[in-house]
């Protein structure tokens, strides 16, 4: 099978990854051989991220009538005009999926123009790879082309840092359209500063081509997002002997590990910073109010970096039970498999959101941590949810400071993940008082967006269920006795669907034809954990 039926996709094509690098940087221009429709990608940046400038991209926008003529000339004209108008320090050139089919060789054409700036060709296999790969490849090609000329001779040793000079690192990976990259960079730069470490270059975000040429001046690299910077970092390690960090500082434990790792690489003492770390997550998690978080079944899906980090926080810092863990990035399948093994579960590696939805429905988690797509899946299924990963949405660029990384990131994560559950607790109270005149059983949970959820008030007297009811064991021929049905309705409605399913499954497995109150409680005891 090659052709793939796709209803919705977690990642865009690879040239959108290249755009995320180009748009994150300053003084770089991307000339893309592409038809007119491909300009849609601009709105990802101007609308989702609310950028105040157009992405630095010139599209050749060739049309059918150009195909018989000279599309190569069209490319050259576009590249020359882009240089004249924007005067970038460097240019990247390439083709989108359609552009690559007409085989015009943008790299060769751009070289023929003999522009007085570095021109880097990014050749992205549009029919094999996706957005994150495209970002990583583009960043790697840029780093190689711009930092390469100052690489030391092979075999030569890195010069020692001058006595008394503060250690310096590069911060690699943040890009345009990244999930909270803007605030993560601020948080981690501050943390490094408190450790006595200077940041040499942060890239791609905010860096110019000239900055990339200086990457070699750092002692080591902090890799915040391996999806974007992994390939460039391993090249820098090979060429400049710069070691890279492996720990992603998301969560309290991971941030502490990250501080240790960075301190070792930089040769600084981290004791004071570790002692003074200001995070409320550990105490909030220990406070008795959080008792109800214990063993909450959580499903996690996202890019590998954020998903694996989320699993660690969920299990070790909030006392949840990780029941599902997955990613859409096949390139990082090994990392997710290792982590899933640690939690004793099967990893889910897929870019089909319908498969993710089926998985969530089957696992019946009490909290979903995912992308914007899992947020919608969770809404449909009536499950609380928090967003932890790209692909991004306008909501993922909040006006306030909201990093995921470092100690402030841990505070943000505590609030973001626990608040939907606290809303769930309010619903519990609502259910307890459901016979009170002010409440009615079919009312929608207040934390769910009413626009997207099927109304629960199905019919007067019918048991009101969250949308999960669709997964009820409908094919089973079990009958609910009236009093058992009545008893079921006393169960808070946000767990009622699960109770109904479990009871029906129990009845089926035990050959019970009519579910009585006794069956209901037998099943409850059977499935008690």
């Amino acid at each position, binding site marked *: 099978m090659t052709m793939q039926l796709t209803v919705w*996709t977690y990642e865009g094509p690879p040239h959108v990854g290249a755009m995320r690098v180009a748009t994150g940087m300053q003084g770089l221009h991307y000339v893309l051989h592409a038809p007119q429709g491909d*300009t849609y990608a601009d709105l990802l940046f101007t609308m989702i991220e609310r950028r105040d400038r157009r992405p630095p991209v010139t599209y050749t926008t060739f049309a*059918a009538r150009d195909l018989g003529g000279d599309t190569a000339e069209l490319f050259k004209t576009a590249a020359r005009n882009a240089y004249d108008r924007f005067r970038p320090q460097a240019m990247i050139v390439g083709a989108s*999926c359609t552009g690559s089919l007409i085989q015009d060789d943008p790299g060769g054409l751009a070289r023929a123009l003999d522009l007085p700036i570095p021109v880097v060709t990014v050749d992205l296999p549009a029919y094999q790879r996706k957005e994150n790969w495209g970002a990583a490849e583009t960043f790697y090609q840029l780093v190689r082309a711009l930092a390469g000329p100052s690489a030391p001779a092979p075999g030569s040793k890195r010069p020692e840092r001058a006595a008394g000079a503060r250690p310096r690192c590069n911060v690699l990976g943040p890009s345009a359209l990244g999930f909270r990259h803007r605030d993560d960079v601020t948080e981690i730069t501050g943390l490094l500063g408190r450790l006595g470490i200077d940041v040499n270059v942060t890239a791609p975000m905010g860096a110019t081509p000239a900055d990339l040429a200086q990457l070699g001046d750092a002692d080591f690299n902090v890799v915040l997002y391996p999806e974007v910077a992994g390939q460039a970092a391993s090249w820098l390690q090979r060429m400049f002997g710069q070691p890279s960090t492996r720990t992603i500082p998301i969560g309290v434990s991971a941030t502490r590990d990250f501080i240790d790792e960075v301190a070792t690489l930089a040769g600084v003492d981290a004791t004071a910073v570790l002692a003074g770390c200001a995070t409320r997550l550990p105490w909030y998690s220990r406070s008795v109010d959080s008792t109800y978080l214990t063993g909450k079944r959580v499903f996690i899906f996202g890019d590998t970096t954020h998903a694996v980090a989320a699993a660690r926080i969920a299990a070790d810092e909030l006392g949840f039970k990780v029941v599902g863990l997955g990613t859409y990035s096949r390139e990082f399948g090994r990392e997710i498999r290792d982590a899933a093994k640690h939690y004793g579960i099967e990893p889910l590696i897929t870019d089909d959101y319908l498969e993710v939805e089926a998985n969530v429905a089957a696992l019946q988690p009490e909290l979903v941590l995912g992308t914007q797509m899992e947020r919608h899946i969770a809404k449909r299924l009536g499950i609380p949810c928090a967003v932890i990963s790209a692909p991004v949405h306008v909501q993922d660029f909040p006006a306030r400071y909201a990093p995921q990384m470092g100690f402030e990131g841990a505070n943000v994560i505590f609030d973001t993940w626990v608040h939907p559950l606290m809303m769930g607790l309010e619903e519990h109270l609502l259910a307890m008082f459901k016979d009170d005149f002010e409440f009615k059983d079919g009312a929608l949970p207040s934390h769910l967006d009413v626009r997207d959820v099927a109304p629960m008030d199905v019919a007067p007297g019918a048991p009101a269920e969250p949308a999960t009811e669709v997964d009820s064991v409908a094919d089973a021929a079990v009958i609910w006795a009236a009093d058992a049905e009545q008893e079921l309705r006393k169960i808070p409605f946000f767990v009622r669907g699960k109770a109904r399913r479990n009871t029906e499954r129990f009845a089926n497995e035990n050959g019970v034809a009519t579910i009585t109150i006794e069956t209901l409680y037998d099943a409850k005891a059977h499935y008690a954990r």
Partner: protein
Amino acid sequence: MNVRAQGCVTGSEIAPRTVRRENGQREVFCGLTGIVWLHRKIQDAFFLVVGSRTCAHLIQSAAGVMIFAEPRFATAIMEERDLAGLTDANDELDRIVTQLIARRPDVRLLFLVGSCPSEVIKLDLSRAALRLSRTFSPAVRILHYSGSGIETTFTQGEDACLASLVSVLPPAEANEDQLLIVGSLADVVEDQFVRMFEALGIARVQFLPPRKSTVLPAVGPKTRFLLAQPFLADTARALEDRGARRLAAPFPLGVEGTTAWLRAAADAFGVISTVFERVTAPYRARAERALVRYRETLSGRRIFLFPDSQLEIPLARFLARELSMQLIEVGTPYLHREHLAEELKLLPADVALTEGQDVDRQLDRCRGARPDLVVCGLGLANPLEAEGMTTKWSIELVFTPIQGYEQVGDLAELFTRPLVRRAKLVA
């Protein structure tokens, strides 16, 4: 790049009009975008794009939202092997269509939608549609059209889709006078027009696209059609090939446009003018009342329209004549001189018209003119706002019901809102 001004005669009674033609970078959607509203309109149709990951990404980005339920559109994403061997690609397409039809038994019409890559590799979707029709007919009808960006700009995707539908419309009875309204309209607008035509005494009115593919409008030599949208060149030609006749009219935007549009039908169907006056007068009066408030805000304001949906010229006519706005530049991706002839007659003679685009040059002109309001796509809106300009997203004009008398106020409000908002904000 290539800019050349050209005189063109648009109507016998008016002076030649200068149209600037540009052929540079175009900042517009491709025709696939039409799927976003077409799949809502034809409620039992499924749109399968045969394309790349970019196509899938475009549609979900243009829709502006994540998917709330399994939608009636999808992309068959071609991969390396499909490009290498077309036989494989056809087998793969058959497999995917079979899978899709099994999954969605509610679908009665399947469009195979061509894309830039499928056009470039010359994957013949017409043959694929024929082949698959043999398998799935009569349960599912399978048609094809191209929404590729190398052939279609934004709303031209709807044109291509409707043109493909024309080929399967049943023949009309030989002596049956009937009116066909062509172009997607919101259901609420269609219902308003149906009541209006009824009041005028035009009984047989049908719509293309239909709400259900199983109830297709008939077409024949006694069919007269009115275009409800200005971007339907191929559809009109296909209908004319079936013997139908187009009624020349401006488009039903604003009081004037709606009245002239209705009058074209009324005249063709022999409605006497006193009846027309009596039926339309209360609606015209109500729509006029709705405009008064907005005219206060918009009158004298200078507006610049970037090319987007081909609705620009009818919109500009409405803005200039009914709201007294001053037109700085009116861009259109494509100017169909015949279908727009009635509009061009009404447009102020001195307006700067641009066909096609060179977005950087056009931005230069826009910055130079400092208009009070800029109508542009989503890629340009925030950057222009950041430069201090006030903008209106053009895509909203395509997704919002704006046609007919009852929507005249809503249409004016769309242009008023950004100006009112900017005036309100002090921080």
